[in-house]
């Protein structure tokens, strides 16, 4: 095993893992805001990818229009999720379990809707991030051009989120609501607005992850279910469901474990090893291995 192979696998693991982290971010935002897990979180990735495919490939709009419109629609979907699912359940006395069941059903519903509208065949994602055979050569390492886009967008997103959450008034209001909803209300923070924002941010971030993942996963039903949703959730758990940046790091850790367990052991055991490590981490650090806010674990 040479250094090149090592680096090649690191690049692969970090790239795919950072997209798991973005999906985990969606979980974290909602948990922090309303203390609920949205099991239809991954559906936002699938819906956005299909929306983009429809606008760009089928309707021939340009990249920016297709991207902005898809993201805008998925942000509105986040708002609808709040008012059509979360609020009615809360009003009728439902709690965490009812929300879990409702979002699980929603996830299945979206898979069926997409299957009816687009069929079961995966569609090729248009080469907006470069042709599938286009690579950047750095010494002996060749990196697909789409990986650069993924890196660039994830770094940009993390930086933007950092600025938003730490430096902006609205971001501070969002964090305050997440930490203590009642106290925030007493302090005059518009909790209604921050809750809506959390829903919209949650679906938007996962939607962006969907567009980044589609060149790798194809525009497919697989984006809306299966192991990718579980890995996104695992990324969030690795960050303790608290720290958004912990979720990103959790995702990267999962991506690296997958790649290196395949490289050194076997691809047959990849998922087994990844989830054994997750379970061990949870037992050792139940508040998350990348949760910088937790002390004394």
């Amino acid at each position, binding site marked *: *095993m040479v250094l090149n*192979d090592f680096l090649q*696998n690191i690049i692969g693991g970090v790239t795919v893992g950072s997209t798991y982290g973005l999906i985990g971010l969606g979980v974290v935002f909602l948990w922090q805001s309303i203390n609920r897990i949205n099991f239809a979180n991954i559906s936002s990735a699938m819906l956005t990818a299909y929306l983009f495919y429809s606008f760009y490939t089928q309707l021939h709009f340009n990249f920016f229009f297709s991207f902005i419109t898809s993201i805008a629609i998925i942000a509105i979907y986040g708002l609808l999720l709040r008012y059509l699912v979360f609020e009615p359940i809360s009003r009728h006395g439902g709690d965490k379990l009812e929300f879990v069941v409702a979002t699980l059903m929603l996830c299945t519903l979206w898979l069926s809707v997409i299957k009816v509208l687009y069929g*079961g*065949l995966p569609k090729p994602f248009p080469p907006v991030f470069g042709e599938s*055979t286009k*690579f950047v050569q750095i010494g002996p390492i060749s990196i*697909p051009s789409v990986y650069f886009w993924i890196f660039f967008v994830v770094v940009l997103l993390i930086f933007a989120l950092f600025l938003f959450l730490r430096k902006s008034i609205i971001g501070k209001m969002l964090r305050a609501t997440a930490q203590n909803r009642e106290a925030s209300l007493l302090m005059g923070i518009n909790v209604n607005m921050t809750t809506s924002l959390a829903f919209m941010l949650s679906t938007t971030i996962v939607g962006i992850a969907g567009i980044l993942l589609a060149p790798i996963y*194809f525009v497919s039903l697989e984006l809306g279910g299966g192991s990718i949703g579980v890995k996104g959730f695992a990324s969030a758990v690795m960050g303790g469901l608290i720290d958004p940046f912990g979720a990103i790091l959790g995702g990267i850790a999962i991506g690296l474990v997958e790649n290196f367990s*395949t490289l050194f052991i076997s691809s047959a055991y990849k998922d087994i090893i990844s989830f054994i490590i997750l379970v061990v981490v949870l037992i050792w650090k139940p508040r998350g291995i990348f949760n910088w806010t937790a002390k004394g674990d």
Partner: protein
Amino acid sequence: MIRFFRNAFIVLVLLALIGGSIWAQGKIDPSKPIKIVLSAPFTGTGSILGDYIKGGAQLAVDEINSSGGVEGAKFQLIVYDDQANASTAATVVRRALYEDKAVAIFGPNMSAAVIGVHTLAQQAKIPMLVGATSVSFRYDKVKNDYLFRLRADDGVKVAQQVKYIAEVLKAKKPGAIVGSTDYCTSALDVAKQAFEKYGIKFIDIEMMKEGDKDVTAQITKLKNSGIDVLVGLTHEPEAAVVMKQVRQMKLTVPAVGFSAWGVPAFTDLAGDAAIGVISVQGFNPTDPDPAVKKFVDAYKAKWGNEPSDPAQCYYDGIYLLKKAIEMAGSTDSVKIAEALKKVEYTGVQGPMKCDDLHNYTNVCYISQFDGKDWKIISKLQ
């Protein structure tokens, strides 16, 4: 005396009615549709094929019905999604057998699903005609008189693939990348046996799971082992993932895939990465054979796109069933099964007849993708 003759007459009438109903059972009745069920994957692994399977079967059903049906009786095609999953396929097959009361079942198409359900058809004595290609359920292994295969199995295809690699490419150090389903692993077993006849062994075999989107580690190991040909034994989306990363990591050896590597579902997803890939195919729409051209034109006219393997085998299968019902003169499933063993038909896949392994054909092609079409290198009939 009168009472005696009256009672005898009543008994005779009753006997005639009972005998008549027994005799009428299974007779082709033009006023009743002949129900056939199609079990195909529209979601899940293999969902890539469901539309093609349904397209081929429905085209044949519509053609037959519009030209008079089967001695006046029309086919009714009932389609279910088996999700390429054995337990879902079992639910579908039970529904077909006991609710729909189908006279025959087409599919499942995924080998893993067939392995799980073919005994249900055997117990119910309903013929099951499948496009699945694993050698695991050849007749000599399962002895199921009600299971029939509509296209060349992997034993034939993989043998042709290995023959091409050993005799034409003259490769001596093959490496393989293999999926985890029965379709893939049984093909690997066949490939190992076929290579042994040439005194060749795989120098590296890497596994991948369906749904894997990164095979950097596997390609790294194959490259480092010094292979001189890559043997692809995966499903279509995984084939696309493999070839993209093969090109990325500059593994420049020839890539020879088996049937899932030779369909538009793979080339659409792989894009330029598929150029130069060689595959053993069960069907090639560019085949100049008139029967193939007629089928391709009819499929395009109806569905707007070119057919892909295994559309042709389900198309042929519906016509085979029609002929078997006509030969049996009945919709009784036991008689249909007996007729299916004897019926001969020339279809898109050429002459078709049930052999000792309950396979109807061994037709396959070795082709190479040029970026637009699969150019046929050789055709085995």
